[in-house]
């Protein structure tokens, strides 16, 4: 209920802001809604929104898979960690824009370069988060698994994965929030379609109605993914904590 009131207050503030600033600087909610309906009806928005979501999903999955694998390896191997850590620090501190431009310059303005740029921007965060998870694995439980001759799969499924679940969840939630912002920049700079491309177009035309018509549903989709996919998955992974632990 409070959330609904909060949302109504947001729309009201927006309306008041639009009245105060004028439609050139802040289009009113009804104007943005009209543009949204027009874009959706023409089929333009579903196509661009779909392409952007595909890029988010692909870049996010690539970064999570590769980042998790390397993070776990670094957390379990101190020598490898010492070797790779300086590179990781560099990667973490390289601006996203630099990575995107380099990917396009070296790989060309194509879909592969776009996905590499998206994944590379998230990759170091996933590595660092999962490295912490691997470092925190309880060696006592590992020894228990060894004594009772757990197979590799059984150890992974029953000993490691439950301990790593909060780190996967943290990496995934932080990752989604980062990746979708990166995707928009990647599309703005080098793709002929997608929400980022449309926003770039809106900027060139100074069409704030178009900009907001694309921005709001996209943000809403990301919030829905966070609320109905990532958070429930995190709750499921940590469900055992409710049993007195």
């Amino acid at each position: 209920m409070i959330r609904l009131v909060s949302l109504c207050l947001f729309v009201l503030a927006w309306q008041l802001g639009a009245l105060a600033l004028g439609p050139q600087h802040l289009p009113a909610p009804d104007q943005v809604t009209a543009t949204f309906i027009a874009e959706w009806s023409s089929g333009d928005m579903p196509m661009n929104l779909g392409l952007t979501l595909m890029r988010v999903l692909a870049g996010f999955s690539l970064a999570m898979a590769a980042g998790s694998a390397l993070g776990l390896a670094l957390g379990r191997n101190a020598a490898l960690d010492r070797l790779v850590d300086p590179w990781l620090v560099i990667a973490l501190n390289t601006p996203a824009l630099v990575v995107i431009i380099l990917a396009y310059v070296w790989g060309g303005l194509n879909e592969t370069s776009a996905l590499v740029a998206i994944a590379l921007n998230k990759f170091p965060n996933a590595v660092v988060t999962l490295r912490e998870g691997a470092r925190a694995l309880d060696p006592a439980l590992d020894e228990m698994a060894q004594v009772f001759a757990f197979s590799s799969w059984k150890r992974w499924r029953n000993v490691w994965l439950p301990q790593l679940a909060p780190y996967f969840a943290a990496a995934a939630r932080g990752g989604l929030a980062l990746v979708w912002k990166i995707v928009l920049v990647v599309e703005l700079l080098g793709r002929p379609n997608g929400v980022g491309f449309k926003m770039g177009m809106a900027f060139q035309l100074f069409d704030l109605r178009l900009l907001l018509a694309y921005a709001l549903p996209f943000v809403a989709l990301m919030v829905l993914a966070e609320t109905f996919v990532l958070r429930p998955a995190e709750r499921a992974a940590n469900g055992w904590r409710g049993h007195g632990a």
Partner: protein
Amino acid sequence: MGGAAMALEIQALSKSFARKNGSAREVFRDFSLTLGEGKVTALLGPSGGGKSTLLRLIAGLEQPTAGALSAPARRIGMAFQEPRLLPWRSVADNLRLAAPGLSEAALQAALAAFELDGRGADYPGQLSLGLARRVALARAFAVEPDLLLLDEPFASLDLGLHRRLRALLAQRIAARAMTVVIATHDLDDALLLADEVIFLGGVPAQVEQRLQLDMPRENRDENLTKLRTLAPFYPSSPSKGDANSGAA
């Protein structure tokens, strides 16, 4: 031990741990010991005296710096100093994971043997330390081990729980033929449970005394005071009392 098949032979074993300052902490040097098949051996000694390290070497959790342990391929059950249960799995699942193929009847029997009836669905976080230790022991027995390793199985328990759990353990040991090695610093535990008590001492650790106990286990409870006189050199805790020590 003459004539018995050797369950476990430790030959000229050395084990050192590196300290942070680069020096080595030597726990064993040229340490040799043979343990008889189907016997219950108690390793007795002060804390930090090498008992747990020896158990870990036997379990394969540590590798010797030199020397060898010869043990035929066997099924090992172990109860650690801490219960080491998987907190995200129920009690029943903790047992099933350690003993794959455990039938429902065998699972219930394993739980009942340690008075854990009706606790199968509980999670470790819902258990007291005493119950968690019982689960850890039930898990060690559930694998039907040939070699059972118990590392201070009653540590941190109050006297009542200590006695109750010791009594349960004594029953289970009597019910199944297997080689058992118990690391403890408690003389009474050793006297009430073991066929042989090995006193470890010194740095690096050496066998200082070996004590064979021929008295039937069920008679030891009432003769505990007399048994203690067999090891006058080792301090026992008077607070543990003579009566109702709970091994039988």
